[in-house]
């Protein structure tokens, strides 16, 4: 039995529930790898960046808080698994936020001198929103990850 928000009661079988969970998780997974939901501006920007390139399976760790009490100073850090050698390195990392007046937050340009691929900064968030990370490798492949941040007090002026 599932109690809906309206207060009504819906009878639902166990089999149906399992199916629902499976479908919703499948949708969630495809959302990360394929077409991105969110503001059209952000998905347009991402499509521009990744157009003509292939996705790469790689460990990308986007470290952002789940809840940001102050939208003026939100820590954003990331770590991408890469040998960072002359032949295989992360070239560009874009950070985007889909609820800010301007979606772009920062673009990090790495070189093989970096040795490892990590960086951190602080950003402003005007409201609760999704933050996207797009990594571009030197061979033209890309990797996308996203995370939702709940913002208690928005950073005015975003």
């Amino acid at each position, binding site marked *: 039995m599932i109690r809906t928000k309206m207060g009504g009661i819906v009878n639902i079988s166990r089999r149906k529930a399992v199916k629902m969970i499976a479908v919703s998780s499948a949708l969630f997974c495809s959302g990360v790898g394929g077409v991105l939901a969110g503001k059209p501006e952000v998905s347009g920007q991402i499509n521009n960046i990744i157009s003509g390139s292939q996705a790469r399976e790689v460990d990308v760790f986007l470290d952002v808080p789940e809840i940001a009490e102050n939208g003026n100073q*939100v820590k954003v850090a990331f770590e991408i698994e890469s040998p960072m050698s002359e032949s295989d390195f992360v070239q560009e990392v874009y950070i985007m936020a889909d609820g800010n007046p*301007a979606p772009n*937050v*920062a673009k*990090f340009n790495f*070189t093989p001198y970096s040795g490892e691929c*990590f960086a951190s*900064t602080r*950003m*402003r968030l005007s409201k609760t929103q999704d933050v996207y990370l797009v990594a571009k490798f030197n061979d033209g492949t890309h990797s996308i990850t996203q995370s939702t941040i709940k913002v208690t007090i928005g950073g005015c002026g975003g």
Partner: protein
Amino acid sequence: MSKIKPRAKIPKEAELNEVIEIKTLIRHPMHSGRVKDVDGKTIPRLIINKFNAMFNGKVVFTVNLEPSISSNPYISFPFKVKEEGTFELSWEEDGGNQYKLTKSLKVV
């Protein structure tokens, strides 16, 4: 307005092939161009839009900053130690002003 002052925390010594983390901070209001002052006038946009890190004349790391970056922008980044030398860090402001900082690194 407080003085714009860049700072960086770089280890003085490092071992060969060690990956060190460099932490930088510059005191800057980062006016996004959307905030109004007490008189209701919009404060014009004035941000640091580019950060460059050079080591012995070679570009090792850069960041393009947008108005969504917080005031007093903090940036940390990695660097693999291959030789001794000097870091030249520079921050570019809208309008072309540059703020620079140099720090040396020794290999032990």
